């Protein structure tokens, strides 16, 4: 069960799980995008859901459970970002980012958790951000929401570790212009310039990074990741290369 496929990271994660033989249910704020992606994969269903709405999240998760019988892996890639000075940030903009990124994660997790507890099995993966680690200027609300996800997961990981459920976060670099577009759209701001993120990641190779992040998600969900819980992995530029050099790629493939 994967939430959020508007950006390269979400899309690539969906495709990697599908390649690995998982049945994939993908939900996105934009239903058409989820449906189009699902139609490109085997055993996949696309649905529409706004993660800010508990009702919509429950509906999608209920449908996934009905179609597939269980959820082994839950991934949240729904992220919205806004590039703006904190003193100019409105309360409404703050609320929008917090609701979409942090509370959305809470909704998704709480909605799926009961069935995972009943099955005594599950992997939860949240896609957070490098911004959770080293918060840049003009991304304060986004950074706060992403570190909130990590904090939430760290607490949750202690609660579910005895139930064979693992909770981890991945922190990609600034790879997704789409999350800035979505943030602007949700808050009624002008779309940001292409390349707004590039200043933070001058050596960015988006395809390579998205692939590395998806590899790590598959790794965490599989047998090799069975002892990993409550972690937040930095996966940007040099880290992705580093993992590949370690041979992780070969192991995952």
């Amino acid at each position, binding site marked *: 069960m994967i939430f959020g496929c508007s950006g390269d990271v979400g899309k690539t994660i969906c495709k990697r799980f599908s390649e690995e033989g998982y049945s994939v249910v993908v939900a996105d704020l934009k239903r058409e995008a989820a449906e189009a992606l699902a139609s490109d994969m085997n055993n996949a269903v696309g649905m529409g859901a706004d993660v800010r709405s508990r009702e919509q999240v429950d509906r999608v998760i209920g449908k996934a459970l009905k179609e597939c019988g269980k959820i082994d892996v839950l991934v949240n890639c729904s992220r919205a970002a806004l590039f703006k000075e*904190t003193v100019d940030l409105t309360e409404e903009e703050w609320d929008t980012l917090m609701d979409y990124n942090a509370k959305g994660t809470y909704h998704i997790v709480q909605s799926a958790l009961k069935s995972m507890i009943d099955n005594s099995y599950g992997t939860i993966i949240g896609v957070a951000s490098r911004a959770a680690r080293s918060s840049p200027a003009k991304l304060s609300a986004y950074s706060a929401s992403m570190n909130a996800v990590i904090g939430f997961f760290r607490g949750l990981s202690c609660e579910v570790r005895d139930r064979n459920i693992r909770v981890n976060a991945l922190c990609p670099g600034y790879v997704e212009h789409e999350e800035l577009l979505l943030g602007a759209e949700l808050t009624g701001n002008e779309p940001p310039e292409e390349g707004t993120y590039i200043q933070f990641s001058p050596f960015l190779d988006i395809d390579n990074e998205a692939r590395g992040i998806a590899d790590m998600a598959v790794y965490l969900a599989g047998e090799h990741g069975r002892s990993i819980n409550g972690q937040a992995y930095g996966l940007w530029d040099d880290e992705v290369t580093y993992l590949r050099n370690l041979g992780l790629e070969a192991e995952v493939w």
Partner: protein
Amino acid sequence: MLLKDRVAIVTGAGRGIGKAIALAFAREGADVVVADINLDEAEQTAREVRELGRGSLAVKVDVRSREDVDDLVAKTVERFGVIDILMSNAGVSSMECVIDMPEERWDFNMDVNLKGTFLVTRAVAKQMIRQCSGRIICTASAAGKSGTPTQAHYNASKHGVIAYAKSLALELAPLGINVNSVCPGTVRTSMQEREAAWSAELRGGDAKPEDIKEEYVSFTPLGRLEEPEDVAKVAVFLASDYAAFMTGQAVNVTGGLVNTE
């Protein structure tokens, strides 16, 4: 005196860590505006500040309310002319496992601890930008760097505070304003009394709040409960000229309980 004639705002200063900080700032020579949702307690702290020979003002503030926060800044500037130091300290907690966590509890923790920090720091930053100087210190927590069962929402809010303060520090650095966080561990406050009681209840069996507090001590390398004054001393340091070249940091004050970055 390390803070002679500075003007400070301390939110959540009616009791606990905030009160200890307000009094420590006053002892170091600062005038202190005491903000709290409980006006009676704020007034009591303000009286104690005045007894130390410093100016004070008690203001009723719910940090979730933009109007209250704007009112706090306006009253401070009207009375004292400037804001040299902001201690954004107001915070709450509750305890429940995620599976049973009502949405209202998520909102309560996130709204007071994280959004409250945003609203207060944003309003004060506007004043500090006009002055081209200022110190902002946020009370985060050891829970902003690690996870504890039954407090995933509180963990989320305090992780958020640390990340937010780091971003804000970078934005305000060119304007001569420093932003840091302080991360207390298990501090002897009314919040701790409540948490020890909740923990005992959630654990069931014969666990008593006193047993929980003994556990806190046993987990703490320096071997005692943390006092509000332990946090206040570091807050004074961060507000003082000694910390002039520190910004964007989240300083652990936990008796060694947390030893990660």
